[in-house]
C-alpha cells in the first residue's frame, strides 16, 4: 500500500498553473527524491502532501487520509523540515526543540536523545542566533524527527551543507527507512542525493517528466556510455571506421567514444582486439548530472498546448 498516493493533481493560483497532472505513489519505507529547478513545483507538491494547501484538481491520499481535512492524529505522524528553516533566534536549541515537542503533545524528556542523534548535544544550551547554517539544519531535522513520524518530508535539506554533514543526513534517513518510515526529499541537484534514494521524480514546470528508480531512468534515457581509449587516437578512429561519435583529445594520445548502452560490449571487444594500438580503457556511465540534464532539459511535448490553455 502506498503511504502517499497522488493522482492527476493540479494546483493553480488564479491563472497561474503551478502543478499540472502530477501522479506519484510512494510505498511504505521507501525514499522518494523530488528533483527539479527552483520553481519546478517541488515545495508546492510538499505543501499539498502536508495538507497546507488544497489541490485544484485530482486527489491526494496520505497515510490513508485526505491531508487537507485530516485531524490532529494525522499531523502527529508527520515530520517536516522546510527549506530555509527559521527558528526564534533568542531561544536556545534545547528550548526550541522542547517547544516543538510540546506542540506535538510529547514529553520533553525525548529531546536530549534527539539532539544527541543529530549531533547538537554540545550546543544545546546556546541560543539559536549563534548557530551556523549546518547547525540550524540539524536542529530542523531534530524537530522533524520528533515522535518518530511515519512520513518525513525534507525540503532541500542538503543544500549548502558540507559533504560530511550530508552523509550524516543520509545515514539518518537510511535508518528511518529501515524501520518503515517513508521519506520524501527534494533537491535541485540530483548528484547531491548520490543515488541514495529508492525512487526519483524529476519535475519541470509543474510536471513530473520522469519517475521511477534510477536504473529505470538510466535505461529509459538511453544516454551513451563514454569510453576513453588511450593510445594512437587517429589509428583507433580509423579502425572504428565511422561508427559511433568520436572526439580525439587535443594531445592525440586518447579518444573519447560515445556508445549506446546496447553496443558497449561489442565496442569493448573491438577495442580489445586492436592490440598495441589501444593501451588503456576507461569506461564512464552517464552521470546523474547527465541524466538530470537529459530529463529536465527535454522540451515538453505539450508546451504549446499548455501555453494555449494558460
Amino acid at each position, binding site marked *: 500500500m502506498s503511504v502517499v498516493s497522488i493522482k492527476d493533481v493540479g494546483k493553480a493560483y488564479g491563472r497561474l498553473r503551478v502543478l499540472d497532472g502530477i501522479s506519484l505513489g510512494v510505498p511504505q519505507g521507501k525514499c522518494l527524491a523530488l528533483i527539479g529547478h527552483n520553481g519546478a513545483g517541488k515545495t508546492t507538491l510538499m*505543501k499539498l502532501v*502536508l495538507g*497546507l*494547501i488544497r489541490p485544484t484538481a485530482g486527489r491526494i491520499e496520505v497515510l490513508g487520509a485526505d491531508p487537507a481535512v485530516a485531524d*490532529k*492524529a*494525522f*499531523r*502527529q505522524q*508527520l515530520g*517536516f523540515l*522546510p527549506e*530555509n*528553516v*527559521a*527558528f*526564534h533566534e*533568542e*531561544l536556545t536549541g534545547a528550548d526550541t526543540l522542547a*517547544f*516543538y515537542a*510540546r*506542540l*506535538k*503533545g510529547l514529553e520533553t524528556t525525548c529531546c536530549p536523545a534527539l539532539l544527541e542523534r543529530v549531533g547538537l548535544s554540545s550546543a544545546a544550551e546556546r541560543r539559536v542566533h549563534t548557530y551556523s547554517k549546518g547547525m540550524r539544519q540539524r536542529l530542523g531535522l531534530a*524537530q522533524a524527527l520528533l515522535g518518530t513520524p511515519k512520513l518525513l518530508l525534507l525540503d532541500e535539506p542538503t543544500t549548502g551543507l558540507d559533504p560530511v554533514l550530508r552523509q550524516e543526513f543520509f545515514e539518518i534517513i537510511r535508518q528511518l527507512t529501515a524501520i518503515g518510515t517513508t521519506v520524501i526529499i527534494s533537491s535541485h541537484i540530483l548528484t547531491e542525493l548520490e543515488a541514495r534514494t529508492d525512487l526519483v521524480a524529476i519535475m519541470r514546470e509543474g510536471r513530473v517528466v520522469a519517475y521511477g528508480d534510477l536504473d529505470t531512468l538510466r535505461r529509459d534515457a538511453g544516454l551513451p556510455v563514454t569510453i576513453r581509449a588511450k593510445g594512437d587516437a587517429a589509428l583507433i578512429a580509423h579502425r572504428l571506421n565511422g561508427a559511433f561519435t568520436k572526439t580525439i583529445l587535443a594531445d592525440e594520445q586518447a579518444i573519447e567514444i560515445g556508445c549506446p548502452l546496447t553496443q558497449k560490449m561489442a565496442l569493448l571487444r573491438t577495442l580489445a582486439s586492436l592490440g598495441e594500438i589501444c593501451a588503456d580503457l576507461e569506461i564512464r556511465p552517464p552521470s546523474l548530472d547527465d541524466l538530470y540534464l537529459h530529463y529536465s532539459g527535454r522540451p515538453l511535448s505539450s508546451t504549446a498546448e499548455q501555453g494555449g490553455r494558460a
Partner: protein
Amino acid sequence: MTPILTFAAKEFRDGLRNKWIAGATLLLGGLAFALTFLGSAPTGLLDVKPLAVTVVSLSSLTIFLIPLIALLLGYDAIVGEAERGCLLLILTYPVSRLEIIVGKFLGHAAILAFAAIVGYGAAGAAAAWTGGGDAESWRAFAGLILTTVLLGLAFLALAYLISALVAERSTAAGIAVGVWLLFVIVYDLALMGALVASKGRIGAEIFPSLLLLNPADVYRLFNLTAFENVRKLSGMAGLSASVHFAPAVLLAVLALWSAIPLALAASVFARREV
C-alpha cells in the same frame, strides 16, 4: 500542556527575553510615579496629590501610550511568523489555527496586563504608603488599572487583525501607526469638528453612541465619569450628565472591542494561504 498554553507561555517568555516586559513595565511605572509625586516638586515638598487627580492625569496619558504599546507588540504576531517561515512549520504540527492565534494573543495579553498591573500598581502602592486617598478614590484607581488592561487588549486585538490581513510586516507596521493615529487623535478631532460644523445639531442621541465606536473614548468615559470624585475633578460633570453610560456598560463595550477584532482576526487567519 495544551497547545494554547504552549503558545501563550512562549510569547510571555519571548517578552521576558527581548525586554518588552521590562521596558513596558518601567515606562508605565515611571510615568505613574512621576504623575503621583511630581505635583509637589515646585514647593520642594514630597507631597502626594489627591489620588483622584492622579487617576485623571494617568488616564489621559494612558490613552496615548497603551494603544501604541499594544499595536507595536501585536502587529507582527501573524505576518512576522509567516515572513520568517516559522508559520509554515508550525501549521504542519497537530495544532489548529485557532489555537495558534488564541495562544499567542493570551501570551501578549499577559505581557500587557503584567506591565499595567505592576507598573501602575507599584505607583498606587507607593501612594498608599505615603498615605492618601479615600475608598472611592481607590476604587477609581483599581478601575483605571482594569480598564487600562482592557484598552490594551482592544488594541492588541486590532493589531492581530491587521497582522492576519496583510502580506508583509512593513505594511502591518504602517497600518498599525495609522490605526493609532485614527483612534487616538483623528477620531476625536473629527467628532469635534462635526459637532462644531453642525452647530451642535448632532444630537444627544447620536453623539454618545459615536463615542462608543472608539475604544479610547470608551476608556476615557469610564475613567472620567464612573466615579463621583473623579468626575468633579475632570471637568466632565457637565458631559456626564448628557452622556451617561453605566460603568458596567462601558466595561462590556471595551471587552467587545477586544473580542470582535480578535474573532475577525481568527477567521481571516483561518483562510490565509501559506
